[in-house]
């Protein structure tokens, strides 16, 4: 092992897709490979057995990969033996398989950074920690944006700016670059006859060690013009965003008008309190822990499951409910995502647009915020 000092964080190389595939498949000998399957807006992260099963052209998933694998929907956190009257000492963390999460978009990487702040802060959640430690993250810069994306407004995409929290960052180079020197120009992603290549950036020591040990083809360092081209691609991509919102203005406007009619009207006419927005949100971390006792009275399991502020019982206390009204629950979601940055020193939205896409009535938090500022 080489010392940390030997590692250069900005190690970059350009490799063809075949080389990447071989590297990933070698990685699969040590890690469970998990990547986007299905494609389009309804891809899903699933365990795959080969590189080719993944669709790296996917646009979005319903369940966010970070949350799905680091903070599972339902988790037994503790069990209690009633006959012995004690919590089981031998209740250890389940042996985690090492998992390589491949093809995460920048928003989802940023969401993991947010969850890190929640679960690895003053108090550490042991289940999250062990999963986090066993995950190898290969991020992938976006090559297209959807109508609902607004990551650019919160600095969470479409290109990853964070310098930590992931292991490898991929950027697909469109058209022909260094080899022939021919620039395909434009955004024709998979050019006929063009060789698919990726700019690969190693962002951790683990990534460096694994890449050098496993990848048969180390690629070539990028030339200036390649990097310039990538900058152009990013700039072009930024122009394709449809959503706009002055995030700084939002910061002050929402709390000033907590009972704005836009919230109430949206809640009354469209909000179903179904919690789809929260379930698909990559940064929503709320959960509930319930004790479940078997009928033989032998074992109590503490079961943790995702919970949602839209759920009527979420804020129920003895003698009342501090968010008994539907608009108060909707407000909690919108304000939490757009306004409560002080909570963890980071915006609670990564602009992935999932809450809008998977809302049965298409409620859009950015539209609510806009209306509230008018």
């Amino acid at each position, binding site marked *: 092992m080489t010392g940390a000092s030997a590692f250069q964080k900005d190690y970059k190389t350009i490799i063809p897709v075949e080389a990447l595939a071989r590297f990933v498949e070698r990685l699969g000998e040590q890690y469970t490979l998990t990547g986007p399957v299905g494609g389009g807006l309804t891809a899903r992260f699933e365990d795959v057995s080969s590189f080719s099963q993944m669709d790296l052209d996917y646009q979005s998933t319903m369940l966010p990969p970070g949350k799905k694998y680091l903070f599972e929907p339902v988790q037994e956190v503790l069990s209690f033996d009633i006959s012995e009257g004690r*919590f089981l000492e031998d209740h250890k963390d389940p042996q985690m398989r090492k998992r390589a999460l491949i093809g995460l978009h920048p928003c989802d990487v940023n969401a993991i950074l947010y969850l890190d702040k929640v679960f690895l802060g003053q108090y550490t959640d*042991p289940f999250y920690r062990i999963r986090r430690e066993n995950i190898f993250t290969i991020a992938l810069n976006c090559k297209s944006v959807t109508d609902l994306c607004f990551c650019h407004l919160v600095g969470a995409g479409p290109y990853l700016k964070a310098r930590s929290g992931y292991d490898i960052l991929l950027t697909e180079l469109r058209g022909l670059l260094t080899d022939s020197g021919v620039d395909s120009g434009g955004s024709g992603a998979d050019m006929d006859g063009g060789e698919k290549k990726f700019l690969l950036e190693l962002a951790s020591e683990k990534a460096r060690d694994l890449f050098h040990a496993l990848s048969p083809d180390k690629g070539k360092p990028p030339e200036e013009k390649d990097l310039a081209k990538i900058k152009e691609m990013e700039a072009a991509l930024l122009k394709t965003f449809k959503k706009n919102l002055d995030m700084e203005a939002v910061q002050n406007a929402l709390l000033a008008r907590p009972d704005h009619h836009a919230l109430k009207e949206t809640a009354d006419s469209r909000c179903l309190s179904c919690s789809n927005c929260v379930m698909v949100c990559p940064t929503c971390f709320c*959960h509930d822990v319930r004790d479940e006792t078997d009928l033989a009275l032998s074992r109590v399991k503490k079961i943790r499951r995702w919970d949602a502020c839209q759920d009527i019982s979420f*804020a129920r206390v*003895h003698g009342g409910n501090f968010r008994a009204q539907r608009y108060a629950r909707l407000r*909690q979601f919108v304000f939490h995502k757009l306004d409560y940055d*002080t*909570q963890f020193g980071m915006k609670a939205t990564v602009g992935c647009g999932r809450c809008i896409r998977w809302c049965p009535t298409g409620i859009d938090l950015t539209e609510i915020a806009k209306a509230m500022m008018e």
Partner: protein
Amino acid sequence: MINGSLAPVKAVITDVRQESPGVKTFTIEPAGTFTMETHPMAKPGQFNMLGYPGVGEAPISFSVLPSGEGKKNKKDKKGKKIFGHTVRTAGRVTGFLSQFGRGDELFLRGPFGRGWPLEEVMGKHLLLITGGLGLAPLRPVIEMARSLAPIEVTLLHGARGPEDIIFKTEFARWQRVGAVKIGLTVDNPGQEQEIAGDIKIHSGLITELIRPLRIEPAQTIAFICGPEIMMRFSARELMLKGMSGSAIHVSVERRMKCGTGHCGHCQIGPWFTCKDGPVFAYDQLKGLPDVIL
């Protein structure tokens, strides 16, 4: 793998005292692997998650602390450190706990939360305003008040009826030993006109006790604990007297479940009641949605 903050530890109830109808104080002693050394010392205003497997957990603040408590209660006969929680039978967990008696075991996690800002008390008039069970989290403050070097300590306490006043037997001692000035009021006056010999029980809202109070706003610090609506009107009364919101501290009770700021249930605006509270300066909460304050 699970540290003390997430895994409940066993504790034994060594004494139970009925404070008022439906309210009991459990004196608790650590048991098994749980000692006062493995668990950080609690501060007044902090809470434990008390619970029982299969039933769930409820956040209950300390009403008796090993430190700062009257000599009699500081340690038990064997010299073990003990602490206490005052619980009202209300929900699922407290209803279950109300059946417990001396010798029964329960499980707890903690201590959690930010306590009362005791460091700010020195040289100030410490004004304690409590309603109902809200007296419980301030009891350790009263017990240690003298050591905090305030210039004066006033306790105003309101309850539904005279029979609902908790810690009745302590008032005389607080007056005598702690030089605490005490005012009591009830919503529904009963037969009892005074307790502990000379504390008269008024009838009416707690604000009626605050109004005639003479305070120097810049030299007063207020700790308020009680129902949210009572805290709101008390704080308003104090601000009318010229106190600033940063000198008024309130303890809010929310649906705290995890104690660690993970589960999200206790959020008030950007705050987590369990780790940023339950004690907040009035300024911190004012104007936030879903807060009555």
